[in-house]
């Protein structure tokens, strides 16, 4: 898997938040590459700078200094609108709290990023959204409203939404944080499946067992990468799911 092109390249990345009297150094020089087709888990305690790092990688924020090259593009001195465009075309987000629009159908939620791409026609949008739902196994549920779906299904809708614009990387911020073990594994199964199909995924988690589903683990501490390792024995989500005791079903419903 390490044969792919480098799609994210970060060099000496720093971020300083000026809080008036104090300056908070959230990142103190981070170097990292992510190759195409990789599945990286980013870990670290709160305040370690992993969220700030993800925000910069996700083009939600700009670094104070350092280089960030996303898919061959130097993300440096560009304005807010250009950042928004990058997010729209290159990045797929999955959040801990799903961040889906309530009282809206699954399909419309998935279509949402495409609405901000004026090049696409309504028919193309619908096609792409249906494809994305297909990939997370929810194509039969496209017309269901969000309140008719379970937590796991909602997160799958969110994953479909992150896929719909065919991004270079999917950034998942604690996607299993609000889910029970079984549903967490279901979601990880989907991530592993997507990764198998060639999608690049970066996942932030603080759960050690979740990080074992990724191929590479990067540990943050105090604004720096503290430890980095390849996972020796990558766990398979489907096997883990099958190994779960039966009674767990009661809770996952």
């Amino acid at each position, binding site marked *: 898997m390490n044969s792919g092109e480098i799609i994210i390249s970060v060099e000496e990345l720093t971020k300083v938040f000026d809080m008036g009297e104090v300056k908070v150094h959230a990142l103190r020089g981070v170097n990292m590459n992510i190759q195409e087709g990789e599945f990286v888990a980013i870990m670290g305690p709160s305040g370690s700078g992993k969220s700030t790092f993800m*925000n910069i990688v*996700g083009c*939600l*924020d700009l670094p104070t200094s350092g280089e960030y090259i996303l898919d061959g593009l130097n993300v440096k001195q560009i304005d*807010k*609108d250009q950042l*928004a*465009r990058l*997010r*729209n*075309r290159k990045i797929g*987000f999955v*959040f801990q*709290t799903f*961040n889906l*629009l309530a*009282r*809206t159908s699954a399909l419309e939620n998935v279509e*949402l*990023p495409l*609405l*901000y*791409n*004026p090049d696409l026609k309504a028919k193309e949008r619908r096609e792409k959204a249906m494809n994305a739902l297909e990939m997370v196994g929810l194509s039969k549920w496209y017309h269901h409203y969000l309140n008719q779906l379970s937590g796991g299904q909602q997160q799958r809708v969110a994953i479909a*939404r992150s896929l719909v*614009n065919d991004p270079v990387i999917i950034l998942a911020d604690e996607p299993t944080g609000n889910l029970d073990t079984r549903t967490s594994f279901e979601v990880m199964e989907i991530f592993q499946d997507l990764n198998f199909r060639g999608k690049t995924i970066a996942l932030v988690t603080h759960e050690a067992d979740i990080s074992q589903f990724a191929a590479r683990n990067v540990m943050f501490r105090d604004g720096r990468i503290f430890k980095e390792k390849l996972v020796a024995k990558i766990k398979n989500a489907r096997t883990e799911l099958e190994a779960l005791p039966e009674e767990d079903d009661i809770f996952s419903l």
Partner: protein
Amino acid sequence: MKFLNLIIIAVRSLNKNKVRSLLTMLGIIIGVASVIAMLAIGQGSRKSIEDQISNLGTNVIMIFPGASSRGGVSSAAGSAVSLDMEDVISISNDCPSVKYVSPVARTSGQVIAGARNWNTQLYGIYPEYLEIRNLELASGEMFTETDERRASKVCIIGETVVENLFDDYTDPIGQKIRIKKIPFTIIGVLKERGQSSMGSDQDDILMAPFSTVQKRMRGSRRDIQQIYASAQTEEQIQDASDEIDELLRQRMKLAKNDDAPYMIRTQTEIVEMFTSTSDTMIVLLASIASISLIVGGIGIMNIMLVSVTERTREIGLRMAIGARGKDILRQFLLEAVLLSLIGGILGVGLGTLSSTLVVKLMGWPVLVTSYSIILSFSFATVIGVFFGWYPAKKAANLIPMDALRYE
């Protein structure tokens, strides 16, 4: 984002909070409706005043002797003896903008027909008076210039006089009546006109040739109580009035700044006099109503601010997946404008409806003009943009990372 998608999104989000959207709109609905209703009432009363004054005649100019005469009622007639027949003749000969001239001799008296009698206004006039005042005959015919020259004892009468002197089966034409003991023959009946703007019965009238009344009833006095004239066209009213003024000044040998012992009133002046009052009323009513429209706008701003706060995470998400600040701005601005626009449409409906009700229930003259609809409608839209701007700008300026994590 395409405009159509924006509209769909805005309509949906308004639809999600139906009661709230409706209540917010209510401010605009009531505002627009009251602007329309107030303007309708104001313009209606203005229109009815104008109509009543146009009842006066076509391009009428009135000349009264004595500065003490006001608004068509000359007080102390006889005290001012400034106008005479020669004035009438020279006005008709020397004023090119004047079309018709008629002196008016007025008195009142008892009219007797058989066993019945009635007290009415007696007018001595030229036949042209009918043209000036826009009067028409219902039956019979008008007396002629020959009657005028001979001071014939013929007359035309109004409907009220007919009703009081004759029963329903008698044709008044050709009947003999006596006015102040002088026998007259009725040769015509005037078309009914109803009440005047001053509240007097315009059908309670008897008209005879000027010379007849002046000689036989006013004791051959030389002075003239009033002169009616009409201008050639509406545009020439002022010219005609100026010509008459100049002519009379010349004839009376007045210096430029001397006070004239006569007064000239044109129809335009009278219209202006009455409508200026109702114009003030219109402005007053409309400004009170627009205050309620502004209050409605503040309601929109208030609810939009709540909405932006409530939907902070949605805004964060939209930004994270590629919405630019201006996309968010447009979305919220459009919601505010849509609120005020729909409110405006409903308000126009309600305003028109309530104006119609005012006509039906109270019988007030009401006039809904397209001008007032366009005015209040565009005012409502402007208010939507104005009061929607701040909340929308606030939404657009949110930082996506913070908005996403907003609890």
